[in-house]
């Protein structure tokens, strides 16, 4: 029968794809980088001032500076790969990227699938909304619509703490999340402090204010699970950057304040 033949063909294609995906090696990342003289780093382009596209259409921001800093210290060329909050961990798992420097916060779920270096920059997430809506505690979120970026820490955190009846609208990337809030498609916005800052600056007519703290979470660099050689190398570079003041300088340049005490 035609139908079953077609199904069998599809199954065969799927099976061959699975076999292809099985080939990769542990602990090879650092060697590969040094051999190819190229490091592939996943960075955000939707998250100012950590990573965004400037008027010259090139990515810039704190995360991009950090990526360039690491490549320079390792003495290799750099290839920047723009990723979103939802797909950045998949980039690491599938070895499309050697490092993820993309405002990546650390939590237990993520530590199961990837490894983290020391922290390199400060960050916190909050809930924002217009002055006309009164939000004093998490319980006030019931019955409100909140925009969040799917798979970002604020989504995971909000899903955990929001009361029943909170309507969380999840968008693909931070640009869409902010656009939805600005267009009035949601009442509230859950996002990082930097994104909210830029949004408020560009849309003063919305009268947006900071409502609640979701999570205080410094940014870490993600490496693929088990790539200890690469992780140790990057940690050494971060420690060096902290001592020399380069990391403080980056935070000062993009966030307007020094990096402060960051967890190892």
């Amino acid at each position, binding site marked *: 029968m035609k139908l079953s033949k077609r199904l069998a063909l599809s199954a065969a294609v*799927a099976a061959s794809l699975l076999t292809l995906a099985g080939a990769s090696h542990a602990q090879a990342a650092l060697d590969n980088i040094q051999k190819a003289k190229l490091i592939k780093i996943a960075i955000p382009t939707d998250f100012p001032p950590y990573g965004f596209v400037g008027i010259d259409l090139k990515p810039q921001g704190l995360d991009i500076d950090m990526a360039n800093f690491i490549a320079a210290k390792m003495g290799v060329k750099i290839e920047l790969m723009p990723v979103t909050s939802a797909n950045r*961990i998949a980039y690491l798992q*599938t070895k499309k990227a050697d490092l993820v420097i993309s405002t990546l916060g650390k939590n237990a*779920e993520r530590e199961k699938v990837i490894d983290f270096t020391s922290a390199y920059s400060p960050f916190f997430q909050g809930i924002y909304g217009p002055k006309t809506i009164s939000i004093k505690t998490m319980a006030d979120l019931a019955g409100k619509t909140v925009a969040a970026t799917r798979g970002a820490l604020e*989504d995971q955190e909000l899903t955990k703490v929001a009361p029943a009846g909170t309507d969380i609208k999840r968008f693909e990337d931070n640009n869409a999340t902010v656009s*939805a809030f600005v267009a009035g498609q949601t009442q509230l916005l859950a996002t990082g402090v930097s994104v909210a800052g830029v949004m408020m600056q560009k849309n003063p007519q919305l009268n947006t204010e900071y409502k609640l703290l979701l999570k205080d979470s410094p940014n870490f660099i993600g490496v693929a699970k088990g790539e200890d050689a690469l992780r140790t190398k990057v940690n050494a570079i971060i420690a060096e950057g902290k001592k020399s003041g380069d990391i403080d300088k980056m935070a000062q340049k993009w966030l307007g304040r020094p990096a402060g005490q960051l967890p190892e």
Partner: protein
Amino acid sequence: MAIELDFAAVLTEWPLLVKGVAWTLGLTAVSAVLGVLLGIGCAWVRTQGPGWSRPGVAAYVELIRNTPFIVQLFFIFFGLPAMGVRLSPEWSSVIAMVINLGAYSAEIVRAGIQTTPAGQIEAAMSLALSRMQTFIWVVLPPALQRVWPALVSQIIIVMLGSAVCGQISTEELSFAANLIQSRNFRAFEAFIVATAIYLLLSIATRATLNWFGQRFLFGGRRG
């Protein structure tokens, strides 16, 4: 290191997947009915409608067929609020899909109408049928029959295209797969499951529509 597959992690989230399938099918059903009706209307205008109305419909068809679906969707969801029209993600998705399918099916149905033999219309006229009666009872059923496979394919393309509606937080199947993988990082498994479900949905939809067309639209029960 071989990648270890863990489908259980994805399948335990089955309520999300079921909801996703329901939304995908629901969006497709509504937009298929309304979109094909819109397409038939536009095809009528472009072939037999009053002259003044043709350029407007032609412009609509060309505009939609020459711009990406996701741009149309974003225009409705992010753009229209600037003009004071605020639609929910679900309504935005339905409207975008109807408008999109309407334009494509207009051209498909028009092709069917234009291949109607002149003698068939003349015969209808000589039986004193009005122009509207001729169109609905004599021209349209065989025209639809001729282009039905193309029309069914277009409906399936729109169903698969509904995957981008997840971008504006409509909770369809791709949204569900994406949400699951962003929670448990089982991207490979989540999208394998989504792929399999889409494949089954497409095959089932095609079979259903082929049966439906034969049975109700041009099955020859009109006497």
